[in-house]
């Protein structure tokens, strides 16, 4: 059993990794970048920004560098960019700068980002273009710009060389001699740092770059240190704290129904199985089927309007407002929370209760047709003992598995319920993050949600092995 559980535990990180990967790909497939250009720097996206110095160091580019957006998403093949591609891009750029109508501002912006993002990985090729006297000065100037951009290091460790690089930025109307002078200096600088900065990687280093110099790797290494970043509109609050603060609320909303379901479904399941075919069973069965089919976003408003408001049961929040809540005694607080979560819990509960009750009924029927039950009957055991000991134990095994596995579904249901009842839980937090496009929260929440779901499965397996002595996973 230990072996099996440890296998499960080993699978857990793998699953989480794949989920992380999946989420990350989806997030990066989004139209526009995580923070779209217009929001960050209105001038950065416009063609008005044709100047050179600012186009190299504008706020948008710095922002991109800071968030690692200059890197490719999953795999980095940039060291293998061909010289022809680079020349083609530079051609577009200088044509646009000259005012050619064939190149659109959008293409210009795209190619500029392309070139500057790639610069760090194609330094030798850029240098070759710069040194090539047969090319036009404009082309060489753009290569120089990209080269300087590539040589720039943002971690604050190379201020001296950064300053040197900026001083060598070629002006827009730079003369050929001055450009040549700048290029010569840059070449000297390049040969000094070439070894130290691995500008011309060998095969092994290329493989390393292929996997590690990517957005995903950067994000993943941050995740490994449990650094999930801060909220989008408040960078003093950490995502991980905010989510963890809300998880107990959501677990209450989803967990209480889980426990209640476990007891209720056995009661109704036995009822259904023992009265099979009778009128009361058929009514019960139909009721359960109907309950199962009613979606939670219909039941929620129904409970609010026809139960909560009619009978004066609170319908908003997890507890009374803080100023009232603070003055209550512990017992009153408990009552307060109980009254507040009565309706939300009902809304999450009824669906899984109906499904599990029907399952229980079928299980009880299946088990009671097996031979060992008939043996027990033949032995003269009372029907109570059979139901409690012989059927009950076999039933519990399947039921616990099915219930623990439904934690994910319950969390999804509690998302809608929390939104409707305005409970400040994990699901609602996630929903609001989705509306605000708060990527850090979305990523962490889906990971946390997956983690809870998997935890449910793990608990299911453990209880399965504990409850059923026949099971030996090998």
């Amino acid at each position, binding site marked *: 059993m230990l072996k099996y559980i440890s296998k499960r535990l080993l699978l857990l990180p793998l699953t989480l990794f794949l989920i992380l990967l999946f989420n990350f790909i989806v997030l990066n497939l989004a139209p526009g970048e995580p923070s779209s250009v217009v929001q960050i720097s209105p001038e950065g996206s416009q063609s008005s920004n044709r100047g050179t110095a600012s186009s190299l160091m504008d706020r948008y580019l710095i922002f991109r560098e800071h968030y690692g957006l200059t890197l490719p998403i999953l795999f980095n093949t940039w060291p293998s960019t061909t010289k022809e591609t680079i020349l083609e891009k530079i051609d577009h750029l200088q044509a646009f700068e000259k005012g050619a109508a064939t190149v659109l501002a959008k293409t210009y912006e795209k190619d500029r980002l392309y070139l500057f993002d790639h610069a760090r990985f194609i330094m030798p090729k850029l240098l070759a273009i710069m040194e090539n006297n047969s090319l036009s000065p404009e082309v060489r100037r753009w290569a120089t710009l990209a080269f300087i951009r590539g040589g720039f290091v943002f971690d604050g460790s190379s201020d001296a060389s950064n300053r040197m690089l900026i001083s060598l930025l070629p002006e827009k109307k730079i003369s050929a001699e001055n450009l040549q002078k700048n290029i010569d200096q840059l070449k000297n600088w390049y040969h000094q740092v070439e070894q130290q900065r691995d500008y011309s990687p060998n095969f092994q280093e290329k493989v390393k770059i292929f996997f590690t110099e990517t957005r995903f790797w950067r994000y993943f290494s941050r995740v490994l240190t449990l650094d999930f970043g801060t909220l989008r509109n408040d960078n003093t609050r950490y995502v991980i704290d905010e989510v963890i603060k809300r998880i107990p609320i959501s677990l209450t909303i989803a967990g209480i129904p889980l426990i209640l379901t476990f007891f209720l479904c056995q009661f109704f399941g036995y009822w259904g199985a023992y009265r099979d075919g009778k009128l009361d069973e058929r009514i019960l069965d139909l009721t359960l089927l109907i309950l*199962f089919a009613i979606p939670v*976003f219909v039941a929620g408003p129904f409970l609010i309007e026809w139960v909560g408001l009619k009978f004066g049961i609170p319908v908003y929040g997890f507890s009374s407002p803080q100023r009232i809540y603070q003055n209550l005694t512990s017992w009153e607080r408990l009552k307060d929370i109980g009254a507040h979560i009565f309706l939300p819990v009902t809304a999450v509960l009824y669906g899984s209760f109906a499904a599990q009750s029907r399952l229980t009924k079928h299980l009880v029927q299946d088990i009671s047709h097996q031979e060992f039950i008939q043996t027990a009957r033949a032995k003269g055991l009372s029907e109570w003992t059979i139901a409690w000991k012989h059927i009950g134990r076999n039933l519990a095994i399947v039921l616990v598995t099915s219930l623990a596995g439904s934690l994910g579904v319950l969390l*999804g249901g509690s998302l*809608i319920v929390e939104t409707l009842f305005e409970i400040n839980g994990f699901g609602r937090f996630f929903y609001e993050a989705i509306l605000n496009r708060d990527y850090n929260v979305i990523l962490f929440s889906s990971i946390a949600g997956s983690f809870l779901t998997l935890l449910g499965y793990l608990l299911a397996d453990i209880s399965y092995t504990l409850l059923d002595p026949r099971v030996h996973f090998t």
Partner: protein
Amino acid sequence: MIEKIQKQFRKQPVALLAAIFLSLFFLTALFAPFLASNQPIFAVFEGNFYFPLFRYLLYPGFYTKPIDQAFNLLILFLPLFLLLYKRIWLPTLLFGLTFLFLHFFPVKNPVGPGNDYQRFENVLSYTLEKEQQQRLLPYLPAYHALLQERKGGKIEMSPSILPTLWNVRQRGLQEEKERKADQPEAIAVIEQHQNDLEEASKHLFKIMPLIRPFHYEQDAGGDQLLNTLLPWYKLTRVNRKDLTSALIFGTRISLVVGFGSVLLAALIGLPFGAAAGYFTRWVDLLFSRLLEVWEGMPVFFMLLMVVAITESKSIWWLIAIIAVFGWTTFARYVRSEALRIRNLPYILAAKTYGASEGRILFKYLLPNALVSFFAILPFSILGAISAESGISFLGLGEEGSASLGVLMDEGRNHFPAESYLLWPPAILLTLTLVSFAILGDTVKNALDPKKD
């Protein structure tokens, strides 16, 4: 098989009700334009016969959504489908080709130069607006009282305070008259035109769609204040479109989502599951791990995330995503079925005579494993419809569509103070889902070999 199903229906009379409801639901979806549209089915005007609804049926400027166009085409193809039901692929192929053809060579607007449709349409809308005004007149006193209470001050009680299309037209005319106050000829022309319309409308005979005389994408007048007085079938939505028409056309979306995403999910899930169950060993191992990872994701969270991030609120995208997250159920069922079947004598016999693996898998194994697929089909459709409505309910559905979830989302805005817009779609949706569940239960019992 049919006998078994009949037996189940006899045992469970409610199932019959569910089946009737779902049949009505299907018929409503198919014949929606005949139930709610602002074009008459048949009209006689100035000695001419008109069939406007049929003229507009395939015109993409009138029914803008591909779903509606497809369903409308289906109405015309229905006889062919019924006649050739034994060779279903033939009408299906023809249908597909026609749909493509219509996509590239769309039907022209019936109102065009050189025909009398323009005049007919003018008279028709004049008549319809007048009729709406007449229908709403009984609510005038109550509406007047409410308006006075809400706005305060003294408001004169006249039919012109009703928020109807008729009054919009009258106000427009009034403004035009004021603008041209110095041109008596122009005013005379306007009045002459009105009198013409009034006169002509008396000679218009028309058979309107059965339930509502509004197109679901059309401005139908009305406002939230008037809504509080009206019975549910006369309500207008927040964007002043007719609610009942939207409900009628919303059935189409529910059906497309339900069947579309389940079909897609089955296309992914069935081959995977069958292959895993048949080949076992590493295929199965790999597959089971994949399933575990896939099912470890909190599905509803993922659905929301993908929809929100890709910012694509189209119904097709929703169908695709629901399928991508829903195929595992099918795969699991078919896998366990395949595990059982693979050792049955007929498969072993096929192996002995040298049938290829692919042939065994797709020709012998999969069709027999399909039984369990059909047993859970209604429940899967239920799940898909419910997921789509849930996402739409949270405000991430296709804007401007008549999906029941979108309608509920609109009703939620003023909830719980004014919930009259929430309940009609909510009840229709619930009835649909419950019917699917009851029918699904019946089918499952009928297919269950143990229940003989």
